[in-house]
Each structure stands twice: as structure tokens, then as C-alpha cells.
């Protein structure tokens, strides 16, 4: 054991490390803020449930047994982010959460933004086989004539022989005005598709998928250039295909061009709905195509955006959509902070009641823990775009209790050592040696819980696990770098060392408890007669291993080193 001076030195060294840690984090944030790093901040960002806004959770729709690849999700996130940004909404947050994508937008988004986010669908190109007005086809008594021309195998994707009797029946019965698709419905890509357009005015039988969004590299809206190079007032959407896509598109238009209306049309679908179905005017081999028609500036740019951003690698359905008003958010924040304050005051009150002057150490430790937590959250807000949510705040409030437990475990161990008759400065060291094991292993359990939950869960649970893990680590740092060294220093003051009645370390002699001075422990106070027999069990149990060994030599002696 080191000398008193050595202890002070070691204690001060720990406290210096703590200051380095505190000012280090604050300094990093502060310097970056000063040097113009816009996102560096001392004010934690709030999540939607506190600041108000809309949260939309999208779930990928895949056929059973198909796994969603992580890169598909990342690509989807960046496409959705592009879409949201293109609407001018700032401060949106788009994250993956397990297999889901969580879109958080401040305020209440307008209909267009919502529609754009929700139409996170697969873009597909199919040839039109049959088209007609979007109402139920009236069929005479003799039944409908089969569309199928022969029983021969279909020779290409425009062949009417693709339409079997059941597809035909479905088409005839289809009334676009009535709901005909389940949300998130998956259509086989190699079979014909019976569907309507977005405006529900026209219904189609479409051939198998021939191109998808990945073959398309860009879509722009603009005006049509006239024959002599002059600009016209006609709006159009220009498509650019990538190499492979351009080749495929050339072959498709080569097949469609000679066919009669409506089989010379190709349809572009999003989420199974046709967004456009233009007719082919020529064989297009250059990899760029132009869609013209009754567009105005707005409708052409809407279509161009849909084509450009519609090419998500997988499609999604909305799992939940939640709007939180800003008023409700700030009410929740105030209530959460109020709860934290009341909780802290109660802990302070109880700890003063229990530990008297020693509670200053508890409160100091909690204060340091609070400062460290605040700085870490500010740091994570800046570096990781962390946002404090209501469940995160609940995690922090709960952490008050769990953090304080480390001090309680330590203080109780010190009291135990005092009860064995040690002087305070010795008890502080011996108590620490025992308490630190307990603190380490119990915090390991806590960290394990936080780590496992963080790795395996989603959404709010993840946020909560994160705060739990963060505060557990901070708890360890504070106990090591503040509580223990401060206690070492305090133990050298007369007030605490003398066991002043307000110090919280007062160990009063009780009838059977032997306190014989510094480092001395008088075992088995000699109780006489019947009581001795009755309490012998307990008296013996009180003995330490060293005492027991001594007892075996049938001498009752005092001992300085205990091992239990």
C-alpha cells in the first residue's frame, strides 16, 4: 500500500485525467464550432417525438424466403433521400432500422412529398398487349371471344397467346374505380400483368417485364426541339438508358414499331400502376428516347422525377406513419425534463438522509456523470447525427439510479471495512479493492444487455439500449476517475477520518460489535450463558477465514488481514 502522499498523488492524477476527458470533448466540439464546422454543437438535436414532425416507416416487400441485401437498402435510402431533398424539405433524416427504412421529416409534409416517399417502388417496362377504358367490359350472352389466337407457344413478349383464359377474365372484370391491388402486392415479372393507370382511366394487359429502373440512367423534362432546331412549346420527357438498357430498348422498339395500336405501346409501371404508356413512333437505338404527349411543364417534370427516382431496387410499403405536433413534442420534452429534475431531487434527498456529508461525493459524481453524458450526446449529435428521443431521456433518467448504485456499493463496502475496525484511509482502499470487482462485473452485465439489445433490435428499443450502454460506460469512468480518488482525498480530512456524526461514516459501537481501535477486530464478543448457545451459530459465522484458522488453534486473537 502506498503512503498517504502517494495516495494523494495518484488521486490527483486520476482527477486530472477526468478534467482532460471533460475538457477534451468540450474542446473538440468548441474548436470545430469556432472553425466554422456547421454541425458541431453543444445543443443535442431532438428526435421527432420531442420536436414534432412526421415519421414514416417503410418495410421492404419481397417474395417469401427472399432476403433483402444491405446494399439494396442503402441504395433505397439514398434514392429516398434524393426524392425528399428534391421537394425542398430540409433537416430530414432517413435511416435504415433493421430491414425497415425510417423517414423523419420535421413538420407535417405536404401531399406530394408523402406520395413521393410512399411511391418507393420498382420501376418496370412492359409491352402493352391489350388496352381499353378503365371500366368493367360488358360481355354478351354468348360470352367473350378468346383474345388468344391459337394454342401455339407465345413467340415473343408481345404475343397475344400470352393471355390465357383466366388473365382475360380478370381483365374483363377489372373496374379501375374499385380497389384492385393489395398494398405491397408483388407481381411475377415473367407473366402478363392486368392493371390500370394511375388516373384509373385506362386498363391494360401488359406483357412480361423487359426492362427495369436499373436500365434507365436518367430522365429529364424539357421542351421538344423543332425540326429546324428551334424550341417549341411542347413539353416532353427525355429518357437515357445505360449501355445494356439502350440495346434492349432498341430491340423492343424494333419489335413494337410495326405492330398495330395498342400493341405498339410500352408501359412504364411503378408499384404495378401504369404511370405512362406511350406509343412507339420509331425504332430507338441510340439509348435515348423522348416521350411526348399532352404534357405541361408540371406534369412532364413529375413524370421525369418518377422515372428517375422511381427505380428503387426493391419496393416498400408504409408500415406506420406518425405525425407529432410541435406543441405535443415540447410538452413531452418539458414533462421529461421535469421528471428528470424530480427524480434527481429525490435521489439527492435520499442520499443526504443516508450518507450525510458523504452524499456530497454522490452528488458530485452524479453531476460529473451528467456533464459527461451531456457532452457525449452533443458529440454524437454532431458526429453520428444522434437525436435524443423521449425513450432516450427515459433511459437517462433510469441511469441516475443505476449510476448511483456504484457509489452505494462502494460506500457500503467502505462501511463494512470500518465495521471491521479499520481506519478510514485503510477502509477506503480495502473497500475499493472489493467494490471494484463487483462494479466491474455488474456493469459488464449491464453493458452486455445494452450491446445485445442494440445489435439485435430496432427503432426505439435501439435508442434506449444506446443510452443504457453509454451511461454504463460513463458510470465506470466517473467511479474510477472521480468517486474513488475524491474519496481517497476526503478520507484524509479530519472531518471524515474522525467519523464525525454528520460524515455518514460514523460507526457506533453496538453491544456485540467489537471495535478495538485501528486495524483491530475483536472477534466473538463473549456473550454468556444461554444466549451464547443460541447465538453461537451467528457468532461463528461472523469469523473470517484468518480468525477461523486462529480459532482452530483455540486462541481467539485479533487479526489485521481478512480474506473474506
Amino acid at each position: 500500500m502506498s503512503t498517504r502522499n502517494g495516495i494523494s498523488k495518484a488521486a490527483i492524477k486520476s482527477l486530472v485525467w477526468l478534467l482532460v476527458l471533460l475538457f477534451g470533448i468540450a474542446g473538440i466540439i468548441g474548436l470545430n464550432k469556432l472553425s466554422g464546422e456547421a454541425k458541431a454543437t453543444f445543443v443535442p438535436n431532438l428526435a421527432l417525438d420531442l420536436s414534432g414532425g412526421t415519421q414514416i416507416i417503410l418495410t421492404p416487400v419481397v417474395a417469401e424466403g427472399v432476403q433483402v441485401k444491405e446494399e439494396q437498402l442503402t441504395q433505397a435510402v439514398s434514392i429516398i433521400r434524393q426524392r425528399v431533398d428534391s421537394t425542398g424539405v430540409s433537416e430530414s433524416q432517413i435511416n435504415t432500422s433493421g430491414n425497415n427504412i425510417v423517414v423523419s421529416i420535421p413538420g407535417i409534409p405536404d401531399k406530394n412529398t408523402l406520395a413521393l416517399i410512399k411511391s418507393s417502388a420498382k420501376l418496370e417496362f412492359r409491352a402493352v398487349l391489350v388496352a381499353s377504358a378503365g371500366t368493367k367490359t360488358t360481355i354478351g350472352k354468348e360470352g367473350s371471344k378468346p383474345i388468344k389466337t391459337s394454342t401455339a407457344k407465345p413467340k415473343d413478349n408481345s404475343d397475344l397467346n400470352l393471355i390465357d383464359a383466366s388473365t382475360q377474365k380478370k381483365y374483363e372484370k377489372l373496374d379501375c374505380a374499385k380497389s384492385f391491388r393489395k398494398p405491397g402486392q408483388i407481381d411475377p415479372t415473367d407473366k402478363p400483368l392486368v392493371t390500370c393507370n394511375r388516373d384509373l382511366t385506362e386498363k391494360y394487359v401488359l406483357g412480361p417485364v423487359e426492362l427495369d429502373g436499373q436500365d434507365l440512367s436518367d430522365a429529364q423534362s424539357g421542351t421538344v426541339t423543332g425540326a429546324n432546331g428551334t424550341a417549341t412549346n411542347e413539353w416532353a420527357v427525355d429518357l437515357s438508358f445505360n449501355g445494356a438498357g439502350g440495346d434492349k430498348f432498341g430491340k423492343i422498339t424494333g419489335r413494337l414499331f410495326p405492330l398495330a395500336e395498342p400493341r405498339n405501346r410500352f408501359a412504364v409501371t411503378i408499384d404495378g400502376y401504369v404511370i405512362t404508356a406511350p406509343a412507339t413512333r420509331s425504332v430507338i437505338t441510340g439509348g435515348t428516347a423522348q416521350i411526348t404527349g399532352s404534357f405541361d411543364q408540371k406534369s412532364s417534370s413529375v413524370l421525369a422525377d418518377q422515372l428517375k427516382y422511381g427505380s428503387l431496387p426493391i419496393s416498400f410499403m408504409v408500415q406506420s406513419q406518425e405525425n407529432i405536433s410541435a406543441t405535443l413534442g415540447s410538452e413531452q420534452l418539458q414533462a421529461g425534463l421535469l421528471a428528470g429534475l424530480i427524480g434527481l431531487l429525490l435521489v439527492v434527498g435520499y442520499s443526504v438522509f443516508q450518507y450525510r456529508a458523504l452524499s456530497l461525493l454522490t452528488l458530485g459524481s452524479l453531476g460529473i456523470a451528467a456533464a459527461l453524458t451531456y457532452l457525449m450526446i452533443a458529440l454524437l449529435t454532431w458526429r453520428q447525427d444522434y437525436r435524443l428521443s423521449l425513450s432516450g431521456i427515459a433511459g437517462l433518467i433510469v441511469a441516475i439510479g443505476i449510476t448511483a448504485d456504484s457509489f452505494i456499493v462502494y460506500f457500503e463496502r467502505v462501511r463494512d471495512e470500518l465495521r471491521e475496525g479499520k481506519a478510514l484511509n485503510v477502509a477506503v482502499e480495502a473497500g475499493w479493492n472489493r467494490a471494484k470487482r463487483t462494479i466491474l462485473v455488474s456493469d459488464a452485465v449491464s453493458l452486455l444487455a445494452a450491446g445485445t439489445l442494440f445489435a439485435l433490435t430496432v427503432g426505439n428499443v435501439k435508442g434506449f439500449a444506446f443510452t443504457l450502454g453509454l451511461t454504463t460506460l460513463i458510470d465506470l469512468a466517473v467511479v474510477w476517475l472521480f468517486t474513488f480518488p475524491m474519496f481517497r482525498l476526503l478520507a484524509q480530512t479530519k472531518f471524515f477520518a474522525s467519523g464525525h456524526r454528520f460524515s455518514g461514516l460514523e460507526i457506533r459501537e453496538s453491544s456485540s460489535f467489537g471495535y478495538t481501535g485501528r486495524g483491530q477486530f475483536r472477534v466473538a464478543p463473549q456473550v454468556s450463558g444461554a444466549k451464547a448457545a443460541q447465538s453461537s451459530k451467528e457468532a461463528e459465522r461472523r469469523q473470517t477465514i484468518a480468525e477461523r484458522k486462529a480459532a482452530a488453534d483455540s486462541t481467539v486473537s485479533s487479526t489485521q488481514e481478512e480474506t473474506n
Partner: protein
Amino acid sequence: MSRFNDFGNQLYSGERSINFISKRKVFYLVALAMLALSILLPAARGGFNFGIEFRGGSEYRVSASKVDSTIAAENAVHTIKPGVQVNTSTIGANTIRVQTPQLSDTESESVRLALAKAYKVKDSNVASSFIGPNWGADITSKAISGLVAFVILAAILMALYFRTIKMSAAALLALLHDLVITAGVYGALGFEVTPAAVIGFLTILGYSLYDTVVVFDKIRENTLEVEFSETATFAERVNLAINQTLVRSINTSIVAVLPVAAILFIGAFVLGAGTLRDISLALFIGIIVGTYSTIFIAAPFYSHLREGEAKYLKAAKKVFAKRA
């Protein structure tokens, strides 16, 4: 405080001792009865009351409402969509929560505006949510896989640290007890099970084991080499450890429960149903049950598992022979 401190002194010295080990049959019976009630009472009520996150549907919150009526909400919803079931409850001072079956986007927006009109507030004061029926199930199935993984890892960690698998077994039994009883209280009283409540359950898991580990570490210390002791048996040393950590257990659980009680109070009386109330309610029950089960179930059961080992039986015989 001195009296409490004296109490601690006496527990530490053994002058005052509560015999947790020898009365363990009583505690086992109490635990069995509690577990049975935790299963039977919710079953009698017809299972858990799952929140909208599990059922799916649309929810609206009207904040700062100037009209204190729940009928107004029903009427407003029925003007848009006649005949649907509407559940309305008042939250806090002047927030009204309205739940309906799942409505389409356009219907939902119309209902939102109708509610704003009915309660004479700005449109922005009415928040609407739509929750698919899979949302809660999705979060819960992930939570359960997290729970199972954590329990296995924690059992391995404890077995390695304490060098005996019996401590893991005793700790996990107590953990199971805590989770079943907390869930049971939820079910029996018909509290709504929401994802926030699920978070609460998961925290209990961490807390319950944490508390058990602190006491078990003292037991580990006290029972080191107890097989060579001629003065105390294994069971007595375990009992002493429980007594010696009793003050700490009481202090810690009070300190842990105080902030949770504050959240519960604010959550229930100021905010009403919501994240804070749901998390804190589960925690409030869980912390109390968790502390109880460490003392009355985990430790006695651990002693139960080990005191029958040959080396401890032999040592105990010697101790009793010496005392006789």
C-alpha cells in the same frame, strides 16, 4: 439515520440476522403462487391488452383542445366514415386521443381536419398516426431474439466469472420470475402493452441480473473456501452475505425506484398514456420485483443448488458436530 446505520452494523456483524435460507420453502411457495396468479389473472381477463402498435389502426391526438368532450370526436369521425369504432380517451389536461381502425390516407386527412374543427383548434394541433398491424409484432420479435441472445450470453459471462454454472441457473430463474410477474401485473390490471412497455421489460432484464450479480459477488466472497470452515456452513455463509448486502439492496432499489417513480408520476398524471408512462410502469414493478427476487429467490435457490454438494455436506457435518 443512525438507526438505519446501526441496523446495517448489526446485519454485518450477524448480531441481527434474517434467516432467508431456512425459510426458503415459504419463499418458493410465495413465488409459485405469484407466478400462477401472473398467468391465471391475465388469462381470466382474456389475455393482454395490446396497444394500437400491435393491432394496427389510425390514431389522432388533439392537443390544447378547448372542448372537453369525447362524443365530439366520435361525431367528427363518423361524418367522414360512418359506423366505424372510435375509442377516445383524455390524456393529461387537455389532450384528446382518438383511435380508429385503419383509414385510408385521404380519409385520415379529412378526419384530422374534422377533429380540429370539432375541438376548435388549429389543424397543426391535431397529430395523426397510422400504424400497420405488423409494427408492434416486428419490434417485439426482434426484442425477443435480443432477449434470448442476452440471456445466453449473460449466463456464460456469469458462469465464467463465478466459476459455477449454478449461479447462472439461480440468477436466470430469478430473472424469469421477474419477467413473468411484471408481465402478469400488466395483464392482470389490463395496462396497454406498447413498444415502450416492451422496452421497459427489456430494461428489467438488465436491472434484475445486475442486482443479482452484486449480491452474488458478496456470496462468492463469503463462501470462498467455506468447505474448510469448522464454524459456518455454506448455507449460513450465503445467508450472511444476503444480510450483509441488505442495506445496499434497500438503498440501491430506493435510489433506482425514485427517478422511475418520478417518470411514472409525470407520465401518468401530466402526459397520460405514452412512452414515459409505459416505460416507467414496467420498470417500477420490475425494479421492486427484481430486488425482491434476488434476496428471496436467487440467493436461497443458489444455496439450495450447492449445499448438497459432497464437500459442503461433509464440512457442514463437521460444523454441526463441533457445535453439539
